[in-house]
């Protein structure tokens, strides 16, 4: 240990000479290194040597394991770095550009957009007036724009009725995103009910009550489906 040039500073003392000998043999150093590696990988925050000592079997020397691990990761895509009192595995800073595209803020589609998208998917080709009739409210410009921007819907052919209104259809991007081969694969209302997906009871992990209107709707469904 003393010979180790990359010895972490926390390594102030070797194993306590007064410690009672453990009931189990101390794991060999490569095994201790594996343990430290796994703990650091899974931890949500940097882990201190004291914490490692507490987690590893009695008689282990996390400080030495850390120093081995540090040299093992030297020059790799991942590095062992010290953060305050703790140690953490981090991607190498020169590769930060690789992670750049990772940062996309994901936001759930608004209710209006989700409903509009659903109507287009189930009824395509469908006109704006038809969407409004099914939803019972007028369609804001932004909703269509957003769905078009996402490349989930596009203009279809004009309807051969007075006024020749434009229709909307879903795109291949839409099918790809939702893992569908065709819109005919979309489940029907009865199938949803059979799968228990129309139950009004709040599903675990799903936020309810964001919108009173929605809860009313859910109640209506219960009435309808509990037969």
């Amino acid at each position, binding site marked *: 240990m003393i010979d180790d040039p990359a010895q972490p500073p926390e390594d102030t003392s070797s194993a306590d000479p007064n410690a009672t000998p453990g009931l189990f043999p101390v794991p060999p150093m490569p095994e201790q290194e594996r343990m430290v590696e796994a703990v650091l990988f899974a931890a949500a925050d940097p882990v201190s040597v004291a914490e490692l000592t507490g987690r590893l079997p009695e008689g282990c020397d996390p400080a030495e394991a850390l120093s081995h691990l540090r040299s093992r990761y030297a020059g790799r895509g991942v590095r062992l770095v010290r953060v305050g009192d703790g140690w953490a595995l981090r991607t190498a800073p020169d590769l930060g550009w690789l992670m750049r595209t990772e*940062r996309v803020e994901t*936001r759930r589609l608004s209710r209006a957009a989700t409903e509009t*998208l659903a109507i287009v*998917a189930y009824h395509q080709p469908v006109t704006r007036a038809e969407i409004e009739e099914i939803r019972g409210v007028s369609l804001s410009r932004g909703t269509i724009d957003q769905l078009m921007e996402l490349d989930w819907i596009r203009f279809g052919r004009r309807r051969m009725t007075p006024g020749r209104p434009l229709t909307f259809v879903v795109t291949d991007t839409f099918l790809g995103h939702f893992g569908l081969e065709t819109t005919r694969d979309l489940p029907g*209302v009865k199938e949803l009910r059979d799968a228990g997906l129309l139950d009004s009871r709040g599903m675990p992990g799903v936020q309810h009550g964001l919108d009173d209107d929605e809860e009313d709707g859910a109640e209506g469904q219960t009435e309808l489906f509990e037969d």
Partner: protein
Amino acid sequence: MTDPHTTELTAARSAPDSVAARLEDEALIVDVDGFEGPLDLLLTLSRRQKVDLRRISVLQLAEQYLGFVEAARKLRIELAADYLVMAAWLAFLKSRLLLPPDPAEDGPSAEDMAAHLAFQLERLEAMRDASGRLMGRDRLGRDFFARGMPETLSIEKHTRHTATLLDLVQAYARIRTRDDFRPFAFDRTDVYPLETALERLRGIIGTTSDWTDLAGFLPPGWRKAGNRRRSALASTFAASLELAKQGQLELRQSGTFAPLRVRARSGGAP
């Protein structure tokens, strides 16, 4: 082998009607809620035979099941309908297995049916065993772990809107069911109200002293064939009956389905 029922088992096999067998069935009945349907119960019963499911005696199994249902009946325990359906089917199968095959009969042989039941039991047991092995596997978040602090290094902010298929179909279902709940209302544009018809007819009948086809009184715009005409005709007819009752007009029809004709009643109401 550690089955506490082992002793009763032997008894049950040697003498199916023995007290021990009945007691054993009763013990099962008490636990009937613990079974996931008749197939599950059959699987449990079949384990009593202590043989590979492929070599199981379906006849014996049918008898055990029927004994179970009989015991439930005696204990006045109500079994769910599917247990009784299975009992009826097993009774049928049992009789088919015991009787010599009827060459005139169509359909699958009793042996085929028995073999299929054995297959179903084996398959259920296999799936049950597979689910146990699956759930016993090393699992993410319990035995092995993902990165504890996923890195987000970029400064670039890019909002991506997303929705799952579940969101989509639920949204659709929500709209559809909302539709179903829309209060029932007539589409008024194609309905000619009785009040309007009455008013119109009352206004023009006074000038009509000759017999005139009722259809001639239909308002303009409601005369073309279709729902509008039907509605206007019905309302005008009802209005004419009302006016006839009040003594303001007379109605005449020369035969069934012949045109209805009306005229103002001479010396009618003031």
